[in-house]
């Protein structure tokens, strides 16, 4: 990406030649490696380089976007012309301000993936595999995926801002299948972040494999989860999917402004119990959802969304911030050059409180303890959400009893936030990929141990069957 300022200026001006109040060019070069291990061997190693560019023009809140894989200047100029044709308003000459000093950012990474021999990466996968398989003879399959990427991004806009960043990500995911007779169960674990190969020094692949394998084996003996409404304790180590679905999406400003979020018009109001403070922070070092600048070139920041139960802010990108007369919160993200940026979460968490998690569990007479969450989904229009219980236990008279399986928990975002009664002191994060509008972005979600007055548990066992 060897482009002179004059060339970029010409391209932006061409894009704005038929109208528009803002334009940006997003260059991306992504080099990825992935290793796939299954059937006790390394089956597949894939790597590749993808280069692309997206040109965006915004006109009164509407977006005109074009992308391609061709970075030749002539082709970029053509792409800009194509976008302008789509805008198709009165011809005007947009006067670009001179470019400001280039801003640069990168993820803090000690061992970059391109400095690690492929054979070393293979060893990580093999260690994970060996440890998982050794856990129990009932394990019939272990599927492991290692991924790393070095993503270089350059974002230049019609306000004269020029931002360059390099983001490194490393991830390891393992899925273990165990079988006993006709019963088959799986356990899944993942680790990763905006970090280099050094992540494996602190978080060992063996531990990841063993954790997933143990869960799969334990689930073989677990009974069906109950069906019905009951109090739920979510352990800190369970991950943060619930927060992500219960309010994360609902607080994305584009959904609010479109009239499809239950949190619309509620700034300054109590939307959660007073023990609830929810924060989105893209500056957390090494976390999976972190970045130096968002995908519009806005610096990452920490945003308090809900403070002691009161709604303080939404998650904004440039377009939505302009509409609400505020500044972007640096949450304008895109999956890649193929997508326009929209408000997205980064690292979203419920702030820890003071309570000892063991005390919270002891409060429940009859309910469910969730030790690990899986994925979830939300309908932001009415606030209904679900998330998967990957590992759960019956709680009876304050004690943790037998393991149960096979349930989603279902609830309504605003209602559930009001029903959080206790907040523990043990904040934990889990990583994932958040999907919205056909775009996936890496995120992390976190929460401490919390007690929710009631949720619908979608198990297969009616209480009266006990």
């Amino acid at each position, binding site marked *: 990406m060897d482009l002179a300022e004059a060339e970029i200026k010409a391209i932006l001006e061409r894009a704005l030649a038929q109208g528009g109040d803002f334009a940006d060019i997003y260059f991306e070069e992504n080099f990825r490696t992935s290793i796939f291990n299954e059937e006790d*061997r*390394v*089956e*597949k*190693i*894939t*790597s*590749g*380089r*993808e*280069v692309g560019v997206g040109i965006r023009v915004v006109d009164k*809140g*509407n*977006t*005109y*976007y*074009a*992308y*391609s*894989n061709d970075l030749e200047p002539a082709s970029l100029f053509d792409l800009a012309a194509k*976008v302008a044709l789509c805008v198709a308003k009165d011809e005007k000459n947009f006067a670009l301000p001179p470019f400001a000093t280039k801003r640069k950012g990168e993820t803090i990474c000690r061992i970059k993936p391109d400095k690690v021999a*492929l054979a070393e990466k*293979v060893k990580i996968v093999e260690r994970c595999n060996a440890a998982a398989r050794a856990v129990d003879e009932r394990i*019939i*399959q272990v599927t492991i995926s290692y991924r790393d990427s070095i993503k270089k991004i350059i974002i230049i806009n019609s306000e004269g801002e020029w931002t360059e960043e390099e983001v490194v990500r490393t991830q390891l995911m393992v899925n273990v*299948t165990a079988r006993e007779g006709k019963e*088959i*169960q*799986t356990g899944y674990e993942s680790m990763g972040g905006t970090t280099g190969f050094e992540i494996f020094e602190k978080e060992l692949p063996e531990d990841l494999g063993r954790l997933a394998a143990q869960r799969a084996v334990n689930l073989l003996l677990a009974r069906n*989860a109950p*069906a*019905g*409404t009951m109090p739920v304790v979510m352990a800190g180590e369970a991950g943060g999917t619930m927060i992500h679905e219960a309010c994360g999406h609902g607080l994305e400003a584009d959904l609010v402004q*479109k*009239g*499809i979020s239950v949190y619309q018009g509620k700034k300054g109001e109590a939307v959660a119990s007073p023990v609830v403070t929810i924060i989105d922070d893209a500056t957390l070092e090494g976390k999976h959802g972190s970045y130096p600048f968002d995908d519009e070139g806005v610096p990452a920041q920490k945003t308090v969304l809900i403070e002691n139960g009161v709604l303080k802010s939404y998650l904004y990108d440039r377009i939505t911030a302009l509409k609400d007369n505020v500044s972007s919160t640096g949450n304008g993200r895109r999956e890649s050059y*193929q997508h*326009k940026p929209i408000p997205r979460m980064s690292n979203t968490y419920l702030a820890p409180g003071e309570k000892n998690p063991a005390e919270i569990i002891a409060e429940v007479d009859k309910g469910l303890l969730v030790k690990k969450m*899986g*994925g979830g*989904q*939300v*309908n932001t*229009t*009415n606030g*209904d959400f*679900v*998330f*998967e219980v990957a590992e759960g236990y019956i709680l009876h008279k304050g004690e943790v009893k037998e393991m149960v399986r*096979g*349930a*989603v928990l*279902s609830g*309504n975002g605003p209602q559930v936030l009001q029903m959080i009664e206790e907040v523990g002191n043990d904040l934990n994060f889990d990583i994932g990929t958040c999907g919205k509008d056909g775009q996936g972005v890496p995120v992390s979600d976190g929460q401490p141990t919390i007690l929710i007055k009631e949720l*619908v*548990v*979608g*198990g*297969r066992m*009616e209480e009266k069957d006990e």
Partner: protein
Amino acid sequence: MSKFKGEEAVQKVLDIAKSKGIKEVEAFYVRYEDLEVEATQSKIETLKISEEEGLGVRLIDDQRLGFSYTTDFEVQGLEEAIENAFNAALLTKEDEYLLLPVPSATYPQPNTLDPTLKEIPLSTKIEMALKMEREAKAFDKRIKLVESSSYTDTFYEVALASSKGMNLKRQGSYCGLSIAVVAADEEESQTGFDIFYSTHYEDLDPVKVGIKGASNALKLLGGKRVNTKKTAIILSPYVASEFLSLLGASFLAENVQKKKSILAGREGEKVFSSGINIIDNAILDKGVASASFDGEGVPTRRNILVEDGRIASFLHNTYTANKAGLSSTGNARRDSYKATPEVGFTNFYLAPGDRKEEELLQDTEEGFYIMEVMGMHTANPISGDFSVGASGLWLKKGEVVYPVHGVAIAGNIFEIFAMIEGIGDNLTFYGSIGSPTLKIKEMMVSGE
């Protein structure tokens, strides 16, 4: 610097590989031209056009698989991809079943291209998205807004060449409409949606899709939770397709061979209810996933997976077929040029039965007609266990008692398909997956 496009690029990869002494190599090139028009509040909120192209290199060296991809069609880009693929192969495990297929003498030619698509002016396509929104809004005064009303189309071309003599190309197109509508009364808001895809522009009906989305939203207004209990279930075609998708994973030979399918070894066995016929058809006329050859250049065909409840066959690519001593069923699928050809579906559906949907509803004393589920991606395709949020209508003999939401349903997908009591005649496709309405004996519904 000269560029090599499409057919030239794949040939160039073969030349470079040959010069490096690589004997078994395959190059796959794809180019897409996309258009996306999204309307809301009577204007176009997003208009996106694009041209994407990339190339994947697959090679087998000493019975070891290597793969890499690139978007750089200069010689250095292609060379880098070949080198990365070669280095990858050095570290993967040997596998005697790895094989590149040989070309066939004949290939089917399903109708996959609408030649008029590129000729239709952008303004006409934009108007279709706007019209669909207007129809939805006008349908009922309780329609509060249209979340999004979208038109998309794609034109693609593929080139595939290999050291085994493959030298193929194909083109195709598809287009579609999707709408998400919000209905509201004083108490609440509900969303409804509909989608429709075809290979041909003339099949798109914005009025129909708009009205369907709106009426789906209206049907859910005024709903509530029900008490926790087991109940008869009717799955709308959309939800039935989602369940079918979960079931489908067990028919991929790769999963069968890797102990990730409980259907392994059960060919010929009657596992599902009578009347259940499940098909994967890559030569379906106007099927959005139809193609003359699969991701490895093997001719495609129509495959019967379940016949009258009996497991008939699994889907294979060249590798899994070789391992099983069978022939490829033409189901090698690449999710993109960045991916290797794995076993996958094409146009995948449950064949229609002979019952009208109204009949199936009227025949049900009391039951839950499920219109939407949430969280299906968390279901376990290996064990078949699922637990998902659900919304729809509580019916008594086909009459709506009240809408239902905020509940969860749980069960096991293999048990569900063995409990089918009625199959509708209304096969409906949602992209490349389809199903008619299905009546199920019972599932657990969790509510109050």
